[in-house]
């Protein structure tokens, strides 16, 4: 059980950190599409008898390549959608080959968070360290590029490269998180906490760390609730993420009232 908590904490922390940039760049679709694109990789890997993690990494990379390549020919959301459906259709092809249908698919899609073994912890630890290290190194140029690509370009930060690197970080976080929380939930961990954090503070570094903290709390709550009710963790993550987002929005819209109250106080 302790392995579950450790893995979930690592996954959530990375998701929160990466999620900060996802929200800032408005890249919600890419954050959703990349885990889904990686899913066929796990299916292919288990077909070939290879470590599923490798398959996830390869297909996540393919997803990044697909989005970047298509984004030169079409609008961003279209490129993401087309890249996604292509890789998913490959997933359908691979799935049609295997005989162990339901449990494996369900696990890939929604995660097997309660079944994490000691052996699986090491790759999670390695990948999360790599992801966080990358974000630390790229923090300033990526922040600049996220706020204003044109100005960043004039300051020597190449926009296209930053974009690919950003997607790459998301892909890395994806590959690490999918075996634990499943393709459909990585995304919720990236988006909900980061949105709430953004509503609470303006400062980038604080927002990023708050986002990681909130994600960890969220995942702990989800695991606990799942343990008590026997319902899937994914349900609670999705619900809590939505609550976090809307709480953030309510808090933000109350800002004028709070300011007025602060000014009006004698």
């Amino acid at each position, binding site marked *: 059980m302790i392995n579950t908590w450790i893995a979930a904490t690592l996954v959530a922390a990375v998701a929160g950190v990466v999620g900060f940039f996802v929200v800032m760049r408005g890249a919600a679709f890419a954050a959703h599409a990349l885990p889904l694109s990686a899913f066929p990789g796990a299916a292919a890997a288990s077909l070939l008898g290879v470590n599923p993690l490798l398959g996830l990494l390869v297909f996540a990379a393919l997803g990044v390549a697909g989005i970047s390549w298509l984004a030169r020919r079409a609008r961003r959301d279209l490129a993401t959608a087309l890249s996604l459906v292509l890789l998913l259709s490959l997933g359908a092809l691979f799935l049609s080959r295997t005989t162990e249908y339901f449990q494996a698919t369900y696990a890939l899609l929604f995660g097997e968070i309660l079944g994490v073994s000691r052996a699986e912890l090491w790759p999670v630890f390695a990948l999360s360290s790599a992801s966080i290290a990358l974000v630390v190194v790229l923090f300033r140029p990526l922040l600049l590029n996220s706020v204003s690509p044109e100005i960043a370009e004039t300051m020597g930060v190449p926009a296209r490269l930053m974009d690919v690197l950003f997607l790459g970080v998301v892909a890395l976080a994806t590959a690490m998180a999918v075996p634990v929380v499943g393709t459909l939930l990585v995304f919720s961990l990236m988006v909900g906490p980061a949105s709430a954090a953004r509503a609470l503070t303006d400062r980038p570094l604080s927002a990023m760390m708050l986002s990681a903290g909130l994600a960890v709390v969220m995942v702990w709550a989800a695991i606990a609730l799942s343990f008590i009710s026997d*319902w899937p963790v994914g349900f609670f993550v999705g619900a809590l993420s939505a609550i976090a987002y809307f709480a953030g929005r309510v808090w933000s819209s109350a800002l004028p009232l709070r300011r007025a109250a602060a000014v009006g106080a004698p």
Partner: protein
Amino acid sequence: MTMLLSLIVEPGFFASGPVRTAAVVGGVAAVVSGAVGVFTVIRGQSFAGHSLADVSSAGGAAAFLLGINPLLGFLGMGVIAAACMELFHVDRASERDLVTGVVTGAGLGLAALLLYLDVTMSSTTGAAVTVMFGSMFAIPASIVPLALAVGIGALVAIAVLYRPLLLCSLDPDLAAVRGVPVRLVGLLHLVVAALAVALSAMTVGAILSTALLIGPAAIALHLAKRPGMAILLASAIGVAATWGGILVAYDSYEWTGGHGWPVSFCIVAIIFTSYVAVAQTELGGVRQAPRAARPPVSSRD
């Protein structure tokens, strides 16, 4: 000529019941998806279109649980999702994607719960896969009347909405000034998209219905300048890809020793290669892509 035909089409194709059902339901899905998809692409709502598919699968799972017609489950959930997305509407595009994402996450969480209850309460195995990837050759013929009704209803809705939707999609400010209820039109667009997604979900499955929604539309927008032409073209391309995909999938049982390639893969492969072909020739040629399909200046969202 018959020799050539028999080379391409494996025996029994035209006579097969499942194939015929697949062709009809798939064809209707393709026509509706192509038509509404043109607006979805122009409005930059590909994520919303994809999200409707994901959330609708929760409806499919619910249908299994309640023992009702899966199409109705999809439809119901899709309409709810469309309403949620429009209810929490924001004006900035990146914000809009965030709302879409959050609704998706919540909807998928719900799907997770329902699928779990499916397994524990009944003994439906393979539910997750069927719901998400579709089982084109396993569509019950009894669904055809309902599918046709939904399809015709959706097309009528598009015809009625055509002018206001076009105006709202191309120039929302002008539409507002002219007294067009922009948000209502936006909601109706999403509802019709949900109808299209529900139809395609029966055929290619929820996850891949996005391909039918935006693929042919994207291709059509590269080829045609006028929206009306684009809609007709998108529907035609969608139907061609669907029927072509059905054919290839049927034939593939021969090459793969009885296993066969899934229809969803065949259809998406056709759509994707067609898109790349069209977009590629665009780059080399002089002809400019229409404004809706061209990438913006900066490289991020």
